[in-house]
């Protein structure tokens, strides 16, 4: 069975970066085969999820300003349906970690991430969040948020341009579209004592 290629308007599948990781993920998911009916429902749900990732208003430094810029008129993330930013983690689907995470901030970020409702995603925006950025030698900076929470998309730049933000969101959409919701994402953890 061939790979179901997630489609994004205006950019061809082949022109995206890092298709290898995506295909690897898809291969793992499809190892057991997909039920056709479930697959169709899955597609609808994933289409919905991919087109409505509401992000948490979370910005620590410079990248946050560029994040505001994509919300404003010129880049207008509303076009994608991303514009609803929720200040409460309960209602957000994704954290865009815009900026440096320091040692003091790390537990806060972790707590916010923990408090988010499933399914949730993380985009590491900018050099600091990806790998410490300019502060690799600092005593108080977490060298990449993947040290504390799982990251879905890495967006390099210092800070990235607004278009790059949109690009990273499209990458995330591709990832969401490829996931298996029923039986995959909607796993039900058992309550631990």
């Amino acid at each position, binding site marked *: 069975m061939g790979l179901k290629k997630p489609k994004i308007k205006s950019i061809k599948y082949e022109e995206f970066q890092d298709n290898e990781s995506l295909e690897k993920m898809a291969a793992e998911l499809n190892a057991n085969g997909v039920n056709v009916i479930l697959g169709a429902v899955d597609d609808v749900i994933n289409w919905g999820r991919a087109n409505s990732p509401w992000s948490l208003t979370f910005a620590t430094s410079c990248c946050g300003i560029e994040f505001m810029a994509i919300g404003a008129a010129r880049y207008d993330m509303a076009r994608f349906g991303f514009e609803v930013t929720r200040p409460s983690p309960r209602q957000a689907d994704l954290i865009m970690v815009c900026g440096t995470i320091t040692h003091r901030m790390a537990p806060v970020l972790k707590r916010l991430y923990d408090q988010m409702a499933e399914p949730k995603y993380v985009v590491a925006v900018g050099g600091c969040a990806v790998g410490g*950025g*300019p502060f690799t030698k600092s005593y108080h900076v977490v060298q990449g948020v993947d040290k504390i929470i799982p990251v879905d998309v*890495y967006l390099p*730049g*210092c800070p990235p341009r607004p278009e790059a933000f949109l690009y990273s969101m499209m990458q995330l959409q591709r990832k969401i579209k490829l996931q298996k919701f029923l039986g995959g994402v909607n796993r039900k953890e058992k309550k631990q004592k």
Partner: protein
Amino acid sequence: MNNFCKYFDSFFRGLKTLLVGLKTTIKVFFRKKITEKYPENRATLKISDRFRGTLTMPHDENNQHNCVACGLCQIACPNGTITVHFETVENEEGKKIKVLTNYEYDLGTCVFCQLCVNACPHNAITFENSFEHAVFNRQKLVKKLNRDGSTVVNKK
């Protein structure tokens, strides 16, 4: 009575400012929108030539670059983004020279400060303005800038 007048005066004044605000927004409502449609406009998107999107090492048509693996860029870099891997070989004249094997560049931590480009005596590296770099895997951001099988331009 004076208080009464003041009350009404401030009321109507306030009302007027509100109407001015409403007028302004409705004017914008019918104005041309300035939104740029990325990614629909990818083909026509204009970005300044000087924009620093990622570090590259230009190669010419013979798959040759200018890097002599001197490592000045590595020293200039403030946060260890660049690692120059080289091996030492003897050339025809019997002199030991460095040959670049892998120019490792970590896009993930690069701060685009341009110190490496300034430091390079041979103009071997430069910034280009592509920006679509988001990936799913951190390792993909660590790039090898020299192409496979490339060699150094022989400067006579």
